[in-house]
């Protein structure tokens, strides 16, 4: 197999990177792909909890690179999709425990067995970012529509370019359509223009994300979740499908009003 590797990253912390990784990964597995998610946020393990796999961890990424176990022993199979695996972060070590060379080796090995290798990186300003992006083919930058988060996203895009990863795609998380309509929140066009990158998705603010994180079940599997639907669209776009932006985030009535110039 000749898989592709992605890093999902952000400048600012707390913009929803881990939620994004869990949902895109689960979405791609639902589409029938072999996916492995790597939690590279060493010392701040979180992806396991979002996926509901926290009780199954025996070994972690640091055990693998230090040779305490074989790679297959550390990979945890998802509860719902047998083609989805997680390589958890170490909780007791620091960000330098995995070196870029080791990461690159790991990526090459995983790409032989999986269609998608997706890395959940620490926020860009933190140490360990360079380790997390070693050996990846593509980058996805997550931001929220706030000035501070967009500013930090620009910095990360610059850092990615400096590391030879250009053409990062953008996901805007926690968008409130009501505020966008009032002109009190930047929309995707505004941010794409400012950052000069391509858009991959717009994820609406959704209470269901909190519920799904409580349950350890990604929102992409929850039909009534608007954010889940938007993540599902992102997974399909990654698979090469043409999915129009905002098709599900915006209701029929809004389109109708727009058509007649009432909005």
């Amino acid at each position, binding site marked *: 197999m000749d898989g592709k590797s992605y890093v999902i990253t952000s400048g600012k912390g707390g913009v929803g990177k881990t939620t994004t990784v869990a949902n895109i990964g689960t979405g791609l597995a639902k589409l029938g792909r072999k996916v492995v998610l790597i939690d590279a946020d060493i010392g701040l393990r979180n992806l396991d909890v979002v996926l509901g796999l926290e009780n199954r961890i025996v070994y972690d990424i640091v055990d693998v690179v230090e040779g305490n176990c074989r790679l297959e022993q550390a990979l945890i199979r998802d509860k719902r999709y047998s083609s989805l695996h997680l390589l958890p972060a170490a909780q007791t070590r620091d960000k330098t425990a995995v070196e870029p060379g080791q990461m690159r080796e790991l990526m090459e090995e995983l790409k032989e067995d999986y269609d998608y290798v997706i890395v959940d990186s620490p926020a860009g300003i933190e140490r360990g970012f360079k380790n997390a992006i070693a050996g990846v083919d593509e980058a996805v930058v997550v931001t929220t529509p706030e*000035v501070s988060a*967009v*500013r930090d996203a*620009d*910095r990360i895009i*610059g850092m990615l370019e400096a590391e030879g990863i*250009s*053409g990062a795609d953008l996901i805007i998380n926690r968008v409130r359509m009501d505020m*966008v309509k*009032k*002109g*009190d*929140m*930047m*929309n995707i066009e*505004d941010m794409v223009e*400012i950052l*000069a*990158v391509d858009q991959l998705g717009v994820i609406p603010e959704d209470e269901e994300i909190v519920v799904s994180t409580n349950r350890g079940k990604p929102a992409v599997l929850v039909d009534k979740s608007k954010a889940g639907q938007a993540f599902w669209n992102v997974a399909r776009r990654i698979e090469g499908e043409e999915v129009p932006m905002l098709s599900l985030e915006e209701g029929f009535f809004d389109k109708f009003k727009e058509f007649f110039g009432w909005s």
Partner: protein
Amino acid sequence: MFEAVKEIFKREDKEKSKDVAKERLRLVLVHDRMDRMGISRDVLNDMKEDLIEVISKHLEIDQKGLEINFERQDKDSVALEANIPIKNEQQKE
């Protein structure tokens, strides 16, 4: 009461907050990118003075209105933009 009504209309006239955010971001990113490229603000000031000196030999310019900045063109390029208001279009001698 009348004041309150006026206040409501005034708010309507105000610029949308997302446009304010965009404008502020644009400026802050120009400076961030300059810092990343290792161009200090002193360089910008020095260039400004040099520009004034050179152009003033030929044209009378509004020195206070002179602005130079870095603008991001697209993914890979940044352009140096200068706005130099001319006071008098007549050339010196």
